[in-house]
């Protein structure tokens, strides 16, 4: 019984993190129709900015709360700025290229971003555990769990609700949905498609950086953290169906629980749990759980 609780709590906490990592990727895919490998780069930048901000804030004697606020705000702003630059200078020239080429351009961007973070912050690891430790633990049933990890889930839920609200209840969100369905038709109806695309990419970069910032207090921020994330995020997003927000929620939950289940019952298999789930889902539903198959053209 206790084990079941541990698996459930761990799984949900991991799912919250996975959702944060995947949401930007799926949003960008939905609107821009590109798999953004550079997402891992934004994640790493967010983590570095956050770790740096936490350190800086701590040296000014600020408490854990302001430290985190500064870290998140800094990461989102930096991520958004870099995202804007990348979209305006590189991606905008590539929208009419084959998707393979665009995929590779984002891979090149990822390599560049990774080395830039290394140039700025050096090759050594940054540690920013203070805020997470400062919040202490909370009792869930018979477990004592870090408050910070619970807060991660809350942030993930807030981000999910926020995205849902913007997409379904605001004028901008309706324009975005229109662009997802048919770019040309929306342009004909007076939607500023290129602005929507830039905006979505900036928001996607911000979300990637936010995911990194949220993770920073939990890990040693070091070169190479972006690589693992991009593969995981893709697995999550593809299970739900590329471009579907609800799909990302379900994908995160499925992967999170599967991984927690494997970690606690079959520790050796934990690495494959994610890929095994992805393979099974794709074998049954080739386009993911919530995506419609594309009609074949003759």
């Amino acid at each position, binding site marked *: 019984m206790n084990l079941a609780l541990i698996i459930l709590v761990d799984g949900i906490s991991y799912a919250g993190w996975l959702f944060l990592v995947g949401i930007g990727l799926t949003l960008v895919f939905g609107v821009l129709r590109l798999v953004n490998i550079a997402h891992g780069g934004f994640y790493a930048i967010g983590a570095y900015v956050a770790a740096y901000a936490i350190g800086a804030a701590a040296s000014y004697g600020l408490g854990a709360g302001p430290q985190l606020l500064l870290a998140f705000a800094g990461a989102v702003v930096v991520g958004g700025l870099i995202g804007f630059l990348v979209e305006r200078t590189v991606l905008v020239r590539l929208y009419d290229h084959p998707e393979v080429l665009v995929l*590779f351009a984002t891979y090149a961007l990822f390599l560049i971003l990774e080395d830039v973070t290394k140039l700025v912050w050096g090759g050594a690891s940054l540690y920013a555990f203070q805020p997470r430790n400062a919040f202490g633990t909370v009792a869930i049933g018979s477990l004592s769990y870090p408050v910070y990890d619970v807060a991660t889930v809350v942030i993930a839920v807030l981000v999910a609700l926020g995205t849902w609200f913007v997409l379904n209840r605001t004028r901008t969100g309706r324009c975005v949905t229109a662009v997802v369905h048919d770019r040309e038709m929306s342009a004909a109806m007076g939607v500023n498609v290129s602005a929507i695309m830039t905006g979505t990419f900036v928001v996607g970069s911000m979300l990637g950086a936010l995911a990194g910032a949220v993770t920073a207090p939990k890990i040693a921020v070091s070169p190479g953290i972006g690589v693992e994330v991009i593969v995981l995020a893709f697995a999550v997003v593809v299970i739900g169906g590329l471009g579907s927000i609800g799909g990302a929620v379900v994908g995160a939950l499925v992967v999170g629980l599967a991984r927690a289940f494997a970690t606690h019952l079959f520790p050796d298999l934990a690495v494959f749990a994610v890929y095994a789930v992805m393979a099974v889902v794709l074998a049954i539903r080739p386009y993911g759980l919530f995506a419609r198959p594309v009609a074949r053209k003759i």
Partner: protein
Amino acid sequence: MRHLDPTILVVVLGAAALSFAQPHMPGWVVYLLQIAIAASLPALGCMILLRSGLLSFGQGLYYFIGAYGVALVHAHLGISDAFLGILAGAAASILVAGLVGFFIARYRGIFFAMLTLAISMVVYGMAVKMDLFGRSDGLNVPRLSYLGFTPSRAWAQTSLFVFCVWVWAVFGIATHLYLRSRFGKLLTAIEDNETRVEYLGWSVRHAVHINTIVAAVLGSAGGALAAASARYADPSLAYWTTSGEFVFIVLIAGQANVLAPLFGSVFLETLRTYAAAFFPDEWQLVLGAVMLAIILFLPKGLGHLFALAGRALRPRRATAAPIEEDRT
């Protein structure tokens, strides 16, 4: 008599020239060429998959299998024969690709790319944890013998180089004939329009499956050469960034001819050597920037430079030339 195919002629003459030039080349050029030759074979595999519009981010898996074919045959059977090592890797990758193919032949586009990536990452994850593969340290590869002939220490480098060159020549010519065959033409047709191919009575799924296996064999041959050159095999060969390099090679060179990946590979290795020498910590940045520049300004690959130069040099005709169709 049918006239000789220029590609085959170039490959054979080039291989012969390189074989005789080896003693006169500095050691680092020999090593660079060997690594470039090894990396160009999985890239060639990527190229034939791209002919049917499929981007594989998992060629590293077969590179890994080929490398471990040589290493494991030595570690467990005590055989250090180069030909047997390549055959072992090729047999294993035919088996793996045959099984994997049933699953991935249904997918296209990004799904194909990411599934191949996921599969190779699973193997990487297993390999770093298994003693069989030497965990993350990898395994050493012995000095190779060739059909019972063991070159002396002084000749080992030369014989390995000549072996690499001719293995490439054999696989390059075989791939060229494969692409020229009816089946090879079918691959391009699949990229154009799958539904029409099926109306013609071919099974797209079988074609993709077979093509995956052929690409896997090419990848494993490259891996065997890489392991023999570097004298070790480690799990990072199956990491997705290794596979990314192979796609990059095809991307910079274009897909016009089987020789293209070889040029791309030499270009990449040279770039990497110089970038690593001048910017030891930022060579990824240089690589990424060059990649991006090529994608932005030469989306058809470096090979397109030749086409552009040819067009500029060709004498202008009196009448206006028709504008070439620019397919994007």
